[in-house]
């Protein structure tokens, strides 16, 4: 197109020389400048930047990492360039996940694994990241398209699948375990899993995988009424898992009975999702690069601009078997942890004694209070901090069933039962 435009400009110039009637010159010049303007626009078409071998701290306008490396010069971060060694899995590339992926991409993260089975729709355009021309593409493909343009240094892997199905889950698990990006890494192939899904079923699937793999992860969520959200750090065995207690959500302060749900499933706002993505990735960066404090649970109530925080211990009666296994390992490793903490304390010299953050497990939710550094940092599960509430009730397994249970007879043949159902179905 650029070549054709150049030819056209040359033709116009030679025509200008041989123009017999000077009165036409004005109109001719106008046409000429319009063509040249179009040619300029075409020349300004996006140029893909090439890959960068090392992150430079040099402050020049061509260095994409200069402002990030400045964090190191200012003493906020010890070694920023470590970010290139990290792998992050983002489950759900929707309103929160896509923005989170863009933030990590711009920060120069080493590798991103993206999971989603959905397609981009025009109905998603009230959120950030995706463009109308990407409608119809899978969210994973569209994200890879945009992210690789923004930063070609990031290694992108996309998985178009549903992690709650048996097959999807197996692929999810093996992708987390794959260590081809950094073979020397301890543990799994990823450093952190970020759950950015919009439903309980998928969160429980992430929880299952991370408990089985002993993989630290962050949960994030925005309420269906779009006015609150939260992030939560989950370290299997050390903190409560997602199944240890019913999910904690921020109370919007709106009476459930007055909330009009007729005719709609869920609302969404780019603002709330952007705030949650920002909180999630800020804590991800702190976790990875070792600066500041990582929030165990941080809520966001947008109506009151209120940010409740809390901390949750694992439930020794958790219904998830893998969680119990991780809890056992965590207790066994206590002497090592104590020794390490003591050594660290001695190295740092005398300081204020801190309250036991992760004392032995007692099934309860603990609320960390600045004013009570020792002793009672556990309260009953009913006593949640102000502004937080449980989304679902606990399984009520002790209640007597209202009808007799289906008689259990292990001699029953599964094929026979299948035939019985088919017979009734076709009757």
């Amino acid at each position: 197109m650029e070549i054709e435009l150049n030819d056209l400009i040359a033709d116009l110039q030679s025509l200008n020389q041989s123009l017999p009637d000077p009165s036409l010159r004005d109109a001719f010049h106008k046409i000429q400048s319009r063509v040249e303007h179009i040619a300029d626009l075409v020349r300004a078409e996006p140029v893909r930047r090439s890959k960068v071998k090392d992150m430079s701290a040099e402050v020049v306008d061509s260095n994409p990492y200069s402002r990030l490396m400045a964090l190191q010069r200012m003493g906020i971060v010890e070694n920023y360039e470590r970010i290139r060694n990290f792998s992050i899995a983002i489950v759900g590339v929707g309103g929160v996940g896509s923005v989170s992926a863009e933030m990590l991409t711009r920060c120069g993260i080493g590798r991103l694994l993206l999971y989603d089975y959905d397609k981009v729709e025009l109905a998603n355009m009230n959120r950030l990241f995706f463009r109308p021309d990407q409608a119809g593409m899978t969210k994973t493909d569209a994200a890879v398209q945009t992210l690789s343009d923004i930063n070609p240094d990031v290694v992108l892997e996309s998985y178009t699948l549903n992690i709650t199905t048996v097959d999807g889950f197996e692929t999810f698990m093996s992708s987390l375990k794959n260590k081809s990006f950094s073979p020397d890494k301890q543990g799994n192939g990823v450093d952190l899993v970020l759950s950015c899904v919009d439903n309980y079923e998928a969160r429980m699937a992430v929880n299952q995988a991370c408990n089985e793999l002993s993989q630290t992860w962050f949960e994030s969520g925005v309420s269906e009424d779009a006015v609150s959200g939260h992030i939560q750090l989950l370290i299997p065995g050390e903190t409560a898992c997602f199944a240890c207690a019913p999910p904690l959500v921020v109370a919007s302060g709106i009476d459930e009975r007055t909330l009009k749900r007729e005719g709609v499933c869920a609302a969404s706002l780019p603002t709330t999702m952007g705030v949650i993505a920002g909180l999630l990735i800020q804590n991800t960066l702190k976790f990875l690069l070792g600066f500041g404090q990582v929030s165990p649970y941080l809520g966001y109530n947008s109506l009151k601009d209120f940010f409740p925080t809390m901390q949750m211990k694992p439930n020794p009666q958790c219904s998830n078997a893998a969680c119990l296994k991780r809890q056992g390992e965590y207790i066994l490793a206590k002497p090592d942890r104590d020794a390490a903490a003591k050594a660290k304390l001695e190295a740092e010299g005398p300081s204020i004694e801190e309250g036991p953050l992760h004392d032995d497990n007692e099934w309860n939710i603990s609320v960390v209070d600045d004013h009570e550094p020792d002793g009672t940092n556990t309260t009953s599960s009913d006593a949640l901090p102000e502004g937080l509430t449980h989304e679902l009730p606990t399984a009520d397994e002790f209640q007597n069933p209202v009808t007799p249970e289906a008689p259990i007879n292990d001699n029953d043949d599964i094929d026979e039962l299948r035939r019985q159902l088919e017979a009734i179905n076709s009757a």
Partner: protein
Amino acid sequence: MEGWDPNTKSTLTQIPLLTTKSGPRDGAAWTVRLKEEYKSLIAYTQMNKSNDNDWFRISASNPEGTRWTGKCWYVYNLLKYEFDLQFDIPVTYPSTAPELELPQLDGKTQKMYRGGKICLTVHFKPLWAKNCPRFGIAHALCLGLAPWLAAEIPILVDSGMIKHKDDATSSTES
């Protein structure tokens, strides 16, 4: 059981409950659960037939019993509207309920998530969570799909979003 109509309530209490808490990744324990699912579904289907309220067909479409397909229908203004029904048993079942899908209605109603998954009422998930592992597929259909069809099909028909299958061919004749 606040928020449920008396009909759903009384039907629900007659569906046999399940006892085994195991999911599709639990090997032999899943087979035990699958047997309970079958018994519960057989009893529910039989009950519907004898009450003259037959409204779905469902069967496992793989030997592992993790994917289910079938049909469901709803009668409105004396006309029967029938839809494909499908769902997967999630890896975290029965802690989480199956997400019921009506793919033919995808994009036709707001009360649906991507892929044609029906949007359940605020009452469904709490009741399911409370009754884990006693509720199974039959309970999900009774508590989730039946009230959804009763609420949404009349709206979809009245607004013209769905047409009766005989309507499309006969409309030019009238």
